[in-house]
C-alpha cells in the first residue's frame, strides 16, 4: 500500500463538514481527507497544545506525540460516527487536552478538575496492561506480516472502507470479484491467526 504523502501536494480546499463526511465515507477520498485535515489544522493544534503544556508547567509530555495520538483518536471517533459540534481544531484540541489530563493524572496521582462538556472518553489502561497488549500485538503483527503484502494491503484498504472496485484498481487486480475473493480468504486467515491469540482479550 502506498504510504507516501504525495496526495497532499495538490489538494482542493474543502470545508470541515465536507472533510468529515469524506472521512466517514472512507475509501480513497476519506484517506485523502484524513491527511488534509492533518495538514490544515495540525500547526494550530500543535501551538495550542504546546501552550497548554507550557501553561501547566509540564515538561514530560511531548507535544508532537500528543498531536499524533489525539489526531488518531479524533479520526477513530469521526469514523465511528461520534457526533460533535464546532470546529475540528477545538474538537482535536479537546481530545488532546483530555489525553494529557489523563496522562498527568496517572503520572502525578493528582485529581484535576475538568469541565464535563470537554470530556471525551479515553481508555484507562495500567502501564502493565499496556505493556502486555503491546507485546501480544507485536507477536500478532509478526504473524500478520507473514500473510504477504497482497493480503496486508487488501485488508488495510478494506478496513478503511475502500470499495472493491477501488481496491482492485489500486492493487492492479482483475476486478472487484477477485478483490472480494482475496479479501475473504485473507480475512479468514487473520481470524484463524487471532483465534488462539489473546491480543484483545487482555
Amino acid at each position, binding site marked *: *500500500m502506498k*504510504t*507516501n*504523502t504525495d496526495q*497532499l501536494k495538490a489538494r482542493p480546499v474543502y470545508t470541515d463538514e465536507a472533510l468529515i463526511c469524506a472521512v466517514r465515507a472512507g475509501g480513497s477520498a476519506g484517506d485523502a481527507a*484524513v*491527511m488534509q485535515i*492533518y*495538514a490544515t489544522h*495540525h500547526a494550530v493544534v500543535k501551538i495550542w497544545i504546546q501552550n497548554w503544556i507550557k501553561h501547566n508547567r509540564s515538561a514530560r509530555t511531548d507535544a*508532537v506525540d500528543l498531536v*499524533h495520538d489525539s*489526531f*488518531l483518536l479524533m*479520526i*477513530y471517533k469521526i*469514523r*465511528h*460516527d461520534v457526533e460533535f459540534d464546532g470546529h475540528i481544531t477545538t474538537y482535536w484540541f479537546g481530545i488532546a487536552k483530555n489525553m494529557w489530563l489523563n496522562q498527568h493524572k496517572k503520572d502525578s496521582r493528582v485529581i484535576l478538575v475538568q469541565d464535563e462538556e470537554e470530556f471525551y472518553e479515553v481508555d484507562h489502561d495500567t502501564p502493565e496492561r499496556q505493556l502486555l497488549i503491546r507485546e501480544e*500485538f507485536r507477536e*500478532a*503483527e509478526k504473524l*500478520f506480516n507473514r500473510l504477504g503484502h497482497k493480503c*496486508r494491503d487488501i*485488508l*488495510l484498504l*478494506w*478496513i*478503511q*472502507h475502500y470499495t472493491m472496485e477501488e481496491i482492485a484498481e489500486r492493487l492492479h487486480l482483475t476486478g472487484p470479484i477477485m478483490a*472480494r475473493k482475496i479479501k*475473504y480468504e485473507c*480475512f*479468514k486467515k*487473520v*481470524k484463524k491467526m*487471532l*483465534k488462539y491469540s489473546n*491480543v*484483545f482479550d487482555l
Partner: protein
Amino acid sequence: MDDENLDDLIAEYLSNRMPKAERIVFEQRMVANPMFAKSVAETGKAHQFLEHIHYQELRQKLVAYDQRMDRDRLVRKKWLITLTFILVCSFFCFLWIHSHWSATAIALTYASGVRIQSDQRHQLTTDDLYWQIALDTYSKKDFKNAWQQFIPFTAQPENPHYFEAQWNILLCRLVLEGATSEWKEDFNLFLRTHHGIDKSLDAKKKINSWQYRVASLPCWTTFSTINPQII
C-alpha cells in the same frame, strides 16, 4: 447469507455504520444465536486488529509528513538567509560604488582650486574672494550656482583660475547633466588643450569604468542626496 457477506455485515455493525433498525435485528440475532455471537466476536477481534495496524500506519504517515514539512521549512529558511545575505551584501556594495563612482563623488574628489588664506604679506583681491565663494558653493554641492560662479573666471585666459574654473565647470556639468556625448566631447577637448590638471586623467578613468555606469543607473537618483562622505 454466505460468509463473505457476513464479514461485511459484521464490519458494518462494528464500525457503527449499520442503520438503527438493522442494528436492533442484528443484536437480537446475537442474543438468540450464540454461534452467531461467537462469529461476531471473532470478526470483531480481527477487525480491531486490522484497525490497530491501520492506525499504526497512519501514525507513520503523520511522522513522515512532519519530517517532510520540517525539511521543507529548513530548506526555505536556508534560502531566505542566503537571499537576505546576498541582498544586504549587494546593497552595501552598491552603496560603496555609489559613494566612490557617482558623478557627485567624482566631482567632489577631483575638484580643482586652492583655498587662499589672507595673511600680512598677501591681501585677498576681489577675484580671490569670488573664487573662494565659488569653491564654497561647490563644496556645498550646489553645483548649479557653483557653475554660474565659475563662469566669470573663464572669460579671460590670463585669469589665474582660468583652467581650474573650466575644469570645475565640467565637473558641475557632469553632476547636473551626466556624461552625455556632448559633455564627453568637451571633456576630451579640455584634455587636449590643457595638460595642467593631473586629476583629469584619473577622473577620465573613473568615468569610463563600469562602476561609474552602475552608479549612474536611474535607481540611484534617490541616493543622489546622500552625502558620499557619510556613506
